[in-house]
């Protein structure tokens, strides 16, 4: 009974996932700031549109600006058995709720000896690209991937957004679900199938170089691949989609074929998740690598406001082309 895929923007796909999940499980609740009263009635990027109309204000709650309590109350509600989604307007604001997420929710199963499930999803958006500056543009996914007990989802396409959000809500573990603010209006086919956490997606097949990237960086890697293809470098692109659990096997088998690895993320490069993927690959595929794997990320700087400055600190398609050529041992720089 496979229906043909619908073309949806990412925000529409997320909205559809919420509607479908709330219909399927009538106990699920969502809360956040301006969820039903902003724009056309769907929160800052529209993701909760019409949810209050369909499911009522008891299950779809507009909240005061109280991130610390929203996240810890979300943890408490989930521990008490209610599947809870908390929308935080920008992922930068999640830091105000670090206690609820990191000290409480993430540890609730372990420290009480497995008694509690904590089906909490904290949804937010990260990433730069639309001039929101230093406190509304960070890519903080690495912080959460570092915490035992948390799952971290970073969808980059409409199909992944739909399938992964539904899986995140069904998960018995606390999940950080980070959308990308510059991708909400990207359109793509949505099959409305659930996608399990921990399965990478091959975004492009190729034989010379494996690029691992998420969200905006996957998009730029795809652009870079066009340029590289013209220069005789055939790129394979892997989008892990979830940083924890993470799917190294798909990366390993790709690297065994291409013998080269480049990881690109929008999070700051230093101490970022790229290092984890590189390190695992070096250990597992040492003998099958033709060159040292490389990683790229944002510069070690806050995200600046002015457009050219903002662009300068994040890897561009051209930067990816250059780094890809360096990875495969071709240092000739050609203009895009």
């Amino acid at each position: 009974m496979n229906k043909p895929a619908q073309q949806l923007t990412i925000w529409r796909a997320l909205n559809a996932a919420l509607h479908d999940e709330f219909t399927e499980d009538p106990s699920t609740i969502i809360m956040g700031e301006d969820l039903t009263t902003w724009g056309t009635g769907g929160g800052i990027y529209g993701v909760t549109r019409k949810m209050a109309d369909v499911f009522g204000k008891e299950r779809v709650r507009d909240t005061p600006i109280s991130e610390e309590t929203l996240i810890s109350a979300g943890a408490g509600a989930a521990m008490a058995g209610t599947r809870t989604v908390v929308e935080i307007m920008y992922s930068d604001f999640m830091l105000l709720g670090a206690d609820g997420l990191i000290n409480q929710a993430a540890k609730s199963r372990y420290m009480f000896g497995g008694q509690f499930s904590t089906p909490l999803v904290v949804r937010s958006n990260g990433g730069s690209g639309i001039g929101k500056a230093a406190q509304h543009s960070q890519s903080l996914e690495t912080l959460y991937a570092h915490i035992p007990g948390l799952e971290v989802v970073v969808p980059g396409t409409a199909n992944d957004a739909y399938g992964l959000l539904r899986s995140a809500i069904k998960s018995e573990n606390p999940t950080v679900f980070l959308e990308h603010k510059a991708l909400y209006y990207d359109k793509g086919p949505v099959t409305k199938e659930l996608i399990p956490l921990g399965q990478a997606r091959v975004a492009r097949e190729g034989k010379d170089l494996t690029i691992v990237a998420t969200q905006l960086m996957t998009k730029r890697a795809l652009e870079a691949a066009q340029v590289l293809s013209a220069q005789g470098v055939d790129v394979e692109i892997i989008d892990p989609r979830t940083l924890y659990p993470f799917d190294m096997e798909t990366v390993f088998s790709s690297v065994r074929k291409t013998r080269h690895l480049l990881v690109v993320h929008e999070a700051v490069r230093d101490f970022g998740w790229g290092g984890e993927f590189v390190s695992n690959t070096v250990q597992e595929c040492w003998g099958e690598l033709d060159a040292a794997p490389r990683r790229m990320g944002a510069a070690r700087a806050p995200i600046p406001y002015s457009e050219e400055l903002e662009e300068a600190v994040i890897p561009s398609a051209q930067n990816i082309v250059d780094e890809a050529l360096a990875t495969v041992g071709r240092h000739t720089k050609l203009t895009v």
Partner: protein
Amino acid sequence: MTVEITEATRFDLDIDGPSALELMSTIREFESRLPTYSEEGLIRGSTHPSVGMEAVAVGVSWALRASDSVASNHRGHAHCLAKGADAGRTLAEILGRRDGYCGGKGGSMHIGVKELGLLGTNGIVGAGIGLATGAALAAQAQGTDNVAVAYFGDGATNQGVLAEAFNLAAIWKLPVIFVCENNHFAQSATLEEMVAQPDLRRRGEAYGVPSVDVDGMDVEAVSNAAAEAVQRARSGQGPTFIVADTYRYLGHMAGDTEIYRTAEQVEQWKGRDPIARLAKRLLDSTVLDEAQLKAIATSALTLVDSAEEFAKSSPFPDVSSAFTQVSEDYR
């Protein structure tokens, strides 16, 4: 016992479980032994006894049922025992043993018991406030009449989460009871030093949360205030803030030099001892006689003896358990 059961005697008798006096005496005995266990090396890290504060946990729990939630704090063993936790399994957890409620993974500051609605004692000051608010939200959203209690000390009133939670609970009329055990010290800092306006009740009122002061050394007073708050919460009328005036006789934790207070002050508070007070009232009103009081004291002692024996004889957890239960494995 053949005493007629009236409202005034409901604390005194074994109706559905131990009497208030027996429960308070058990908690007293349980908590009094902890410093010794620490000295003997049976307890690692920190443990925070609540000797002197028994009336608050027992008085509040009297109004609760198993399906209600409780989010506790670092000084939380009494909250667990009063909610119905088994003393042996609670102590086994404090000693890091296999038969502890959390298999030795939590310890004193992370004792949770799902079937009793215990969302855990907590190592983060004020964290239970958010958790209890969430449990109350869950109760409301699911249409049950369960309530949630957050226990916290005077120190936690200076955490921002309390301001946020007061407001959220008030606007949504959440069935949550905020119970501040004002024992006058945030570790070593006095309330007077750390707040300019020490009438804590007014903080709740400022957010539209009905707020009440109660003598935290009087289990009946606490119980009456809690019963009213729970009734309000169950009937959809929202939160209550109870400020219980109380005191801890022992230090903040084992090894506390207590340079921040005088021995005289401690003795003065012992003059208001909640257990002695209830015992005296029961005796004066001839609800119980000396022999019955003695029997209750002995029974508390016996109960804690057997809890100790159980906990000490429980094996340490298998090391392999250190690596399990981090997440549900769904793959």
